[in-house]
């Protein structure tokens, strides 16, 4: 039977796996943020022009974006923690540590911006 110690991975290998993941999900979060902004604009425009159907459509778009972000949040938090612990403690080559720290910063700022945008509600 495999012991818990056998299940550990080399920090350098884990970091190499985390870097593209952070990059990919930072982009996804930026996309969610961009679509959210669009839904908020459409909603505001529809309200101004009193187009109820268009407003409902924009609100539905916004709700599905909120759902998408909420669905991602637990795993993105885990991803942040894994990367952050490696940056701070892991036995990494200096360039890997630097790259991981940069990707983590990019990822966390994308996450924060998107969370703030969605947290503001459909009215923005």
């Amino acid at each position, binding site marked *: 039977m495999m012991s818990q*110690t056998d299940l550990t991975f080399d920090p350098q290998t884990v970091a190499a796996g985390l870097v593209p993941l952070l990059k990919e999900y930072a982009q996804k979060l930026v996309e969610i943020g961009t679509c959210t902004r669009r839904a908020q604009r459409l909603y505001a425009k529809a309200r101004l022009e009193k187009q109820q159907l268009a407003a409902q459509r924009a609100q539905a778009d916004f709700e599905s974006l909120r759902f998408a972000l909420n669905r991602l949040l637990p795993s993105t938090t885990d991803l942040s923690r894994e990367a952050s612990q490696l940056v701070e403690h892991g036995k990494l080559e200096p360039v890997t540590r630097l790259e991981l720290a940069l990707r983590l910063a990019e990822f966390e700022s994308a996450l924060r911006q998107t969370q703030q945008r969605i947290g503001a509600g459909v009215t923005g």
Partner: protein
Amino acid sequence: MSDTDGAKQTAVAVVSWLWKNKDWIAARLGELKAWYLRGKGTKKEPGILILGPGGAGKSTLARLLAGEYDYLRDLPGEYEESVSVETYALKDSPRVEVVVPPGQRQRREATWADLHADLAAGKFRGVIFLSAYGYHSFKAEGGYKGHKLYQGDMKQFVKDFCAERRAEELEVLRQLIPHVQASRRKLWMLTLVTKQDLWWDRGTVEKHYRDGEYAAEVHKVLSQKGHQQFRHEYVFASLVISNFVDRNSQVLKKNTEGYDQKVQVESLRHLFETLDAFRQWEAG
């Protein structure tokens, strides 16, 4: 047309306008409610800021102060790194916000700058600075053998790790001190040295904080602000009793023999008595 008819007509017009615009009104009311709940509409009392390096126990302390920590349900030693600024309401004074920013070096720049400015602006009544004599929880992949300080010997690793983390505690304190000095209001500061169950050697540890470089930094504030405007205390305690373990539950240091729940409760009682003393000092 009589006055009554005119008033009736106006009322009908108002009701009809309200009915026609009910969605718009509901949306505006919703926005107003969200704005209010975000805190812009409520008058809060100055809060408490909990600072310190990652893994020292800031979130555990905040949850304890907020009455959210459950000693029967929460598993001691289960470390979950905080990734963003957390806020809690003080259990016995819900209008006092307890603010806990993440402690990792790479997150400090991004999240602490605003809080330092708030501290200087007098938005906090007190600061709790958490240290743990270097016993900071970590959960990096690879466990202690995958740690940057590991050189092939576990005991030596623990020694090096704690020494490095103590240096980190000092660095974080040095970042904080100028902002405490700049604070416009009467301010208290508590140095809470946690994880007493791991280092239960009062002489060495207390000396480290009370007599060394740490105390010199705190003294800078005292000499600048004076005892009327600044009060500092030390508390040495254990928020939870747990062995020092790595990600793979490998025990790096066991609790000190004899450190039981009675000793822990006494240490926590001292913590709460000190916070009460700060409250009285604020009022005085």
